């Protein structure tokens, strides 16, 4: 059996060449950002030795560009750095509340939202928030750079579109214009340190009289992947995002869900709670947009 190895490329070219060379030789690689999922998996569900490719020493994956359009968040930036950034919090309150829900102070010192996305758990908290905020994955590979909308990045439980010679460089977000804001909520049985039973992210744009002109609604932990729910957005667009519209959006989320029953919740419970979370996250996004 092959032994573990560790590589720390310092450029994207070097990282991609290394990934491609391993792929060609049939040797397994593992991208390593914060490592808060990878190290646990290495000791439990997936002990097969592989080459760990540390992506944290590349300028592009450490780039944080908040004043630009699109906003860019490098895949190696720990969530603690994002959570401490007041400008980012004011631009994307929902995305940052999702990042701030994941793990303890210690975990946030290492964990990244790019890693959360690449781990591709159905319950990853930042994923619905990234989808709602129209996040686009910037992917580097042997063929150059490609961009994939976050909702198209995920292919199943723990799987995504990344090829063996590719890595996530970071996420691009269209800079919120005018009265645009987002919100994210999840439900867990305690107040801290748990995995979502269900989650919902909502991003809204309102016009001057408070009518919704654009919306994105995404849900998590209620299907094999986080999902964009266009029907929920349609229920909000053209309304004042009142209780009736939010209820319709919530019902659309329930309709789009296909949850499982596990120790955290039953199918019936998740179907119900995802609608509640959509309504509340939508109301938060609305109130934030109205305040802009």
């Amino acid at each position, binding site marked *: 059996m092959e*032994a573990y190895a560790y590589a720390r490329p310092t450029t994207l070219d070097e990282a991609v060449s290394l990934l491609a060379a391993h792929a060609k030789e049939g040797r397994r690689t593992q991208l390593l950002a914060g*490592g808060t999922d990878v*190290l646990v998996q290495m000791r439990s569900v997936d002990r097969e030795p592989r080459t760990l490719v*540390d992506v*944290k020493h590349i300028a592009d994956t450490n780039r944080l560009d908040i004043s630009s359009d699109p906003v860019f968040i490098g895949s190696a930036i720990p969530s603690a750095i994002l959570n401490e950034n007041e400008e980012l919090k004011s631009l994307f309150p929902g995305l940052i509340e999702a990042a701030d829900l994941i793990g*303890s102070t210690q975990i946030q010192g290492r964990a990244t939202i790019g890693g959360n996305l690449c781990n591709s758990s159905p319950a990853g908290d930042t994923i619905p928030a990234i989808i709602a905020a129209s996040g686009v994955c910037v992917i580097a590979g042997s063929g150059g750079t490609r961009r994939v909308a976050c909702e198209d990045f995920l292919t199943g439980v723990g799987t995504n579109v990344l090829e063996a010679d590719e890595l996530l460089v970071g996420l691009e977000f269209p800079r919120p214009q005018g009265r645009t804001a987002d919100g994210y909520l999840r439900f867990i049985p305690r107040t801290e340190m748990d995995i979502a039973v269900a989650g919902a992210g909502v991003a809204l744009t309102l016009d001057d009289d408070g009518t919704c002109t654009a919306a994105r609604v995404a849900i998590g932990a209620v299907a094999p992947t986080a999902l964009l729910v266009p029907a929920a957005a349609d229920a909000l667009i053209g309304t004042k995002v009142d209780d009736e519209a939010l209820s319709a959006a919530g019902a659309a989320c329930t309709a789009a869900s296909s949850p499982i029953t596990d120790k955290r919740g039953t199918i019936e419970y998740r179907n119900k709670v995802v609608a509640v979370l959509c309504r509340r996250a939508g109301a938060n996004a609305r109130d934030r947009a109205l305040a802009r």
Partner: protein
Amino acid sequence: MSKVHVVTSVNGEPREMLCEPQQSLLEVLRDELGMTGTKEGCATGDCGACSVMIDGRLVCSCLMLGVEAQGVDITTIEGIAEGSTLHPVQRKFLEHAALQCGICTPGFIVATKALLDRNPDPDETTIRYWLAGNLCRCTGYDKIIRAVQDAAAELAHEA
């Protein structure tokens, strides 16, 4: 298995170590450097017993590889006291009996130091959320919170 040569700094002292690629920083600290103050609880990032600071930022040393420590500054529990003089956080944990079995204590002390370094006057809610990643099965937490508050007050008085 080829080991990786890592140059790092532990509590201000330059250190060199040979790490297997998959070894956690916790394993390297304890087994290679013989620094056993940092404890292993869960080894999955849930309990915080292995907390250390990396470049001033609190992390679980069980969720970081030894090889990732190349070029960083590591602060462990052994670096909190000044010689034989306990840091006020350590002293207040003793005075308030904020420990019983003591396995979680190094992690709590390092986490508290990291908190007070960046926020010298945290309210109780802030303290409780900051320490949510440190688990203690003995104290019920209340004595720990009082010790942290008292340490913050003493440090503010000193400053």
